[in-house]
């Protein structure tokens, strides 16, 4: 056995049969450059990841032409981070980037210029809205946008299909070492569920905050060992656009009618039993379902085991009154939800992979009993479109729609039969986001249709006094009012690819000529 002197002056072996090669000690600091050497000083650069400017952070990360950068969309319509970072990257002359944001909203209109100038070459996102969506729909980009679901994005990142070079993550509170959470500070957004996946897997992570707090910033959502640099700015978002007080219950009679009918469907479906789990979307009708379910739960002394998803004040209230035992929160929709996630240990923050990654060892959508989702269009095969409007322009997001539809026991789509002059139930949806084989029930203001695949649910609903029709009958009712719409003037060019949650391409969106 060969022995060598190590840095502590001891003779140690270099190899041991049965174990293999060993490294002799080289000094306490030799292999851990980030550990502080001079005790007593709190301001050593290595103990403080703050850099003066965003530009310095970008340069230190080594961002180069052709790399992939990522963002999260927890600041929704109030986000300042994407535009702020892109301004500086453009000034640095970096080009051909892939922008992989968990989603993009109408506040990201300035990106149009950076696409035109070649700064952004490709986009991965869950959704697009506003001017950016309009331009892309009209053929702005050479390479199609890749639309993914929230679970699909987490899968792509965790499997390495989407490799992020630098993640720029806005955080509402952060300490100088990178412990960050979303529920405190003036730009509080609650859960950082989508950002956590990026922080774990990006090669470099830059946190951007407007609220530096004392170390250690516990409880934290993004932990210090994932973070490379921190930049402090005046504001990371507009609180008005991030989250408003408590989500107001709709007073729209049509939405209330649909919501009440949907709650009756759920109660009758066989899935409404003590310990059931539920997710409701944030649209007017979907949200109001929560209220009607609450009444039925009180009547029948039924409690839910958990509520999942985008969390609102209504869910928080039901949790606090004991009707929902646990909350799993990937995205907080209002300030009540933000408050609750900060105060309540049973209101648990989850990341996008835990939420919906189809390839991990167990995402929570698989444990979901009932989900209520909205739709822009649904066809007679029950395929659902939540991304392209009736004018062919992108104006929505894939979100968790396809993830929860397949994971849940009962997926309920709520939509008015006719919007304006456009029928919602049609022969073929413009774009498929969620395949019909995963959609169970459609609830409209004119009646209910059950996917024939779910004959046991259909039988139960037929026994009740609910207005059950076939989806073809609902389509005819709609067309009686609206007539059959003219086909949309789509061109040949593909402007977006719609990726199903498993990474396969389920549909494409083509350039619209209007």
């Amino acid at each position, binding site marked *: 056995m060969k022995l060598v002197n190590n840095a502590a002056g001891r003779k140690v072996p270099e190899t041991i049969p049965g174990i293999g090669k060993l490294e002799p000690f080289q000094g306490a600091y030799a292999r851990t450059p980030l550990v502080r050497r001079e005790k007593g000083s709190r301001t050593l650069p290595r103990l403080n990841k703050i850099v003066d400017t965003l530009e310095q952070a970008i340069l230190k990360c080594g961002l180069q032409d052709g790399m992939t950068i990522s963002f999260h969309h927890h600041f929704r319509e109030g986000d300042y981070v994407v535009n702020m970072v892109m301004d500086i990257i453009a000034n640095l002359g970096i080009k051909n980037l892939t922008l992989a944001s968990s989603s993009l909203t109408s506040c990201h209109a300035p990106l149009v210029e950076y696409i035109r100038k070649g700064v952004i070459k490709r986009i991965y996102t869950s959704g697009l809205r506003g001017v950016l969506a309009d331009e892309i729909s009209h053929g702005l980009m050479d390479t199609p946008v890749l639309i993914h679901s929230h679970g699909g994005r987490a899968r792509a990142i965790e499997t390495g299909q989407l490799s992020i070079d630098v993640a720029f993550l806005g955080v509402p509170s952060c300490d100088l070492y990178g412990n960050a959470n979303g529920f405190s500070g003036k730009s509080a957004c609650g859960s950082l569920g989508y950002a956590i996946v990026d922080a774990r897997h990006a090669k470099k992570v830059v946190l951007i905050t407007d609220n530096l707090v004392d170390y250690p910033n516990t409880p934290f959502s993004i932990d210090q060992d994932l973070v490379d640099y921190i930049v402090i700015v005046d504001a990371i978002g507009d609180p008005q656009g991030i989250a408003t007080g408590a989500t107001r219950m709709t*007073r729209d*009679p*049509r939405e*209330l*009618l649909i919501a009440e009918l949907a709650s009756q469907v759920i109660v009758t479906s066989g899935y409404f039993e003590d310990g059931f789990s539920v997710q409701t979307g944030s649209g007017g009708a979907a949200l109001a379902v929560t209220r009607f379910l609450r009444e039925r739960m009180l009547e029948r002394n039924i409690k839910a085991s958990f509520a999942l998803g985008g969390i609102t004040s209504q869910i928080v209230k039901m949790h606090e009154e004991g009707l929902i035992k646990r909350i799993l929160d990937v995205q907080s929709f209002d300030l009540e939800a933000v408050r609750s996630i900060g105060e309540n240990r049973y209101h648990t923050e989850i990341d996008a992979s835990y939420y919906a990654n189809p390839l991990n060892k167990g995402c929570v959508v698989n444990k979901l009993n009932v989900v209520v989702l909205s739709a822009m269009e649904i066809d007679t095969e029950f395929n659902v479109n939540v991304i392209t409007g009736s004018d062919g322009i992108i104006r929505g997001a894939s979100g968790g729609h396809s993830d929860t539809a397949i994971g849940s026991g009962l997926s309920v789509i709520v939509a008015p*039969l*006719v919007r*304006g002059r456009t029928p919602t139930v049609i022969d073929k949806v413009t774009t498929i986001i969620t395949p019909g084989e995963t959609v169970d029930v459609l609830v409209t*203001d*004119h009646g209910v249709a059950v996917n024939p695949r779910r004959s046991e649910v259909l039988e139960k609903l037929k026994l009740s*006094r609910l207005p059950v029709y076939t989806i073809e009958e609902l389509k005819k009712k709609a067309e*009686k*009012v609206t007539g059959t719409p003219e086909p949309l003037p789509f061109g040949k060019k593909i402007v977006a690819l719609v990726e199903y949650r498993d990474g396969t391409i389920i549909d494409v969106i083509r350039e619209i000529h209007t």
Partner: protein
Amino acid sequence: MLYVPGNSAAMVKDAHIYRPDTVMFDLEDSVSYREKDAARFLVYQTLRTIDYGGVETAVRINGLDTPYGKDDIEAMVRARPNIIRIPKTEKAQDVSDVETEIERVERKIGLPIGTIKLFVAIETPLGVLNAREIACSSNRLLGIALGAEDLVTSLRTSRSKDGIELYYARSQVLYAARVAGINAIDTVYSNVQDEEGFLAEVRLIKQLGFDGKSVIQPNQIKLVHRVYTPTEEEIHKALRVLEAIREAESKGSGVIALDGRMIDKPVVERARWTIELAKASGVVPEEVKL
């Protein structure tokens, strides 16, 4: 009876989904002068096209003293709603004038005379005082409604929570309806945000004896039905009364008693009415015999 502005395509096309007993398309006060033609055209086309799923349809026309009233009748008789509602009725002659016009159009298009039924609205002090002659003025009349907004202004007062200012008018309209054997429908409650206030008013008019209420917001329909739907206890009691009657009749006994109390004719009448209401509300199956 749900008011639907006749110029709103979005609302006209499917107001029946909220399941009011009657949908009333308005061509009168909720439609501005500039849109009278458009509203008339829209309501005509909708009534000819859309299946209202068994919900009764009514149209409130403009008065014959306006430039629109005659054209409204001309179009609406052809559109064939169940009911034409006459606004601001003050005397029996107002009803006769409209009836004459309707009959003329019915004849012209070969519709059996009397197909189109009538509803009147009382909205002025003179109308209130003449309620009885108005209510008895036509065989086509199905009901008489009170419209309070104009009335309280004429009375130099305003709507209050307890409705004291409408007490006389409500009673007068109700008595007129009962004399004529037609329905009495109460006025609208315009603060659509105030659910509690609305419920209190519905309870009040039900207690007075009204058959129903006009509503301007679909969310109010459920609340009216909730107040008017007999409770389980009321239904149970009514069924027992009717059962006791049947038993007594089969035995041929004259005096009927239930739980030691005599059942006379008014008690039986009320029991019948309770079961009728319960059937209409869908809480008692149609098969139950009276």
